[in-house]
């Protein structure tokens, strides 16, 4: 798999926002590759910087200063012109957000909103409408042709998220980024939506970056998993490796807090302490205040994301922990 060139190659991505007392760094040099056909999950507690990562790939927020490089389709999106970016947005990289209701313009008809990425690119109205209908059909919106004239408030949550998915893929992007696409939905619908995303990405569909704080969704879906904490990737691994043998204590913590059928509710352990905040940075390893395995050393020196040799070929994994070598299953031996 590593031989396939990545469709999206993010290197050392940094993001800063201006705050009252100077710039605040939200992302600290994140590197991640997405290959064609690949489904990658980006996980981490709420506030770890996942959304910032997704949005800053296509520079959605004016207020954020982006550094590093984002290679996509022969261009570096970090330095690309606004014009080039607009080409990439929607057509190169599609985005689905967490809350399907607030993601839709309340006063525009569904059809017009789904067609919009095409209309913007000069696709004739009639054709755009047809394609939008096809996509909605494919995503299981019943009566798509008629429902295109309806307004968002007339749709259920699940249907709305299908519409959002349709908007994101109607222009056939090479990469689909879904930022917590199921968080606002009830459990039954969550599965349907995940199923849809999986179908979308199958045979020739876009590479998918699924952003979630719910590791439970990841297992059956992703090929690889990247774990984010405090604006850094702290572990990247194949999905099986990660579940079988999490190396970072934080990953372990995340896995432990996933509800599992074989465990009683009382055994569910959340990670102790409060999540890191970009506005109150700590020295050393950002996780050390909450880490059971932390040594004194951890408070002073930030561990780098380093490649761990894997027993299996092509399944090298990366982890950023001083004690990665000693840790098995996320616990010190």
């Amino acid at each position, binding site marked *: 798999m590593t031989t396939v060139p990545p469709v999206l190659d993010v290197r050392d991505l940094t993001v800063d926002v201006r705050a009252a007392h100077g710039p605040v760094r939200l992302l600290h040099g994140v590197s991640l590759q997405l290959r064609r056909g690949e489904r990658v999950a980006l996980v981490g507690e709420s506030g770890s910087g996942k959304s910032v990562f997704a949005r800053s790939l296509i520079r959605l927020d004016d207020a954020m200063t982006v550094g590093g490089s984002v290679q996509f389709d022969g261009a570096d999106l970090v330095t690309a012109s606004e014009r080039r970016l607009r080409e990439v*947005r929607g057509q190169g990289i599609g985005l689905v957000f967490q809350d399907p209701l*607030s993601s839709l313009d309340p*006063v525009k008809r569904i059809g017009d909103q789904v067609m919009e990425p095409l209309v913007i690119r000069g696709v004739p109205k009639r054709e755009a409408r047809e394609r939008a209908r096809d996509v909605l059909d494919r995503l299981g919106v019943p009566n798509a042709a008629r429902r295109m004239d309806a307004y968002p408030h007339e749709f259920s949550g699940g249907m709305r998220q299908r519409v*959002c998915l349709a*908007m*994101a893929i109607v222009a056939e992007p090479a990469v689909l980024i879904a930022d917590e696409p199921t968080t606002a939905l009830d459990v039954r619908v969550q599965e349907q939506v995940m199923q849809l995303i999986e179908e979308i990405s199958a045979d020739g569909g876009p590479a998918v970056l699924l952003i979630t704080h719910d590791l439970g969704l990841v297992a059956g879906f992703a090929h690889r998993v990247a774990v984010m904490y405090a604006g850094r990737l702290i572990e990247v691994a194949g999905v099986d490796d990660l579940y079988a043998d999490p190396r970072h204590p934080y990953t372990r913590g995340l896995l432990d807090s996933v509800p599992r059928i074989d465990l009683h509710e009382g055994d569910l352990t959340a990670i102790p302490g409060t999540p890191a905040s970009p506005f109150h940075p700590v020295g050393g390893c950002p996780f050390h205040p909450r880490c059971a395995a932390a040594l004194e050393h951890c408070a002073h020196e930030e561990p780098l994301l380093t490649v761990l040799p894997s027993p299996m070929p092509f399944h090298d994994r990366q982890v950023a922990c001083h004690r990665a070598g000693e840790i098995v299953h996320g616990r010190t031996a």
Partner: protein
Amino acid sequence: MSVDQRVATYAAKRALACAFIVWGIATLVFLMIKAIPGDEAQSAAGITATPAQVEQVRHRLGLDHSLPVQYVDYLGRLAHGDLGTSIVSFRPVREELTERIPASVELVGSAMLLDVLVGVPLGMLAAARFRRTTDNVVRWVAILASAVPLFWLGLMLQSFVGLKLDLLPLSGSQTIGKESPRVTGMATVDALLAGNLSGFGDAVAHLVLPAVTLSIPFIGFVSRITRSSIVGTLQSDFASVVRAKGASESRIVVRHALPNSLGPIVTFAALQFGWMFSATVLVESIFGRPGVGSYLADSVTQKDTFAVLGLVLFIGTVVAVASAVADMIQLLVDPRIRAAQVGAPA
């Protein structure tokens, strides 16, 4: 019932509410005028009138009846479109109003047009360039514009554009001798109706300075409301989604933010009608235009009950109708409001 029918029902309900508001205004003003100290019959007859003459006038104007009777009389006449007789000119108030209202409507209408055509785009521009130089410039200009005294502004424009540059007429609503036959009472419209192009040009030229003067402070207000309303919308999630589709900033502002922000803008514009009519007094005085402004001021000082009543009723009706129209516009633009007011479509 089809959606069209439901919308029509809603419009009818809204019109009824409007009528109630107008009735309320009529009642309120009637009570207010009665509450002002001073003898109406005395002021109608003049200070030198003999007591017998005062009584004669009191009787003729029906002021000798009890308040409820005066009120019922008044409402009855109102229903027949009779606004009473001015106690100053002894002319039917309706007639006096028809002489003045068209000119004010022409002025307020064109100022409102400028207000919306300039103020809204200005606010959109500022919002699209949120916190950048353009935004800051527009914001300061808007604050200045809404703070500038109308009177001073009018005089400045008049002496600069009218006198120094000699580009536009100084005052009046048309050049004497270029009038068209009176149909609507609005110089511009009458000229068009008469097919009198040079008369139309003349009337428009006379209208430009007063309309610009009247609109400037309001442009300030409208652009600020528009800006803040659109900035709010631009920060909502769906604006990000549209941006992520590859839409340009102007497309987001025009196609998405504006329709979503129309509610507060339209509501505000409707309120402005009332303010504008009251502000005409200064503009009309500077630019020598006939209109309701001076009439209102005059009638109030002279305690011309029925004239004030007629005029306040008119302005109140304008505001009530404008806000009903604003509601209808919102209804047409926003499907959620439509759903809430007339039910979900079939």
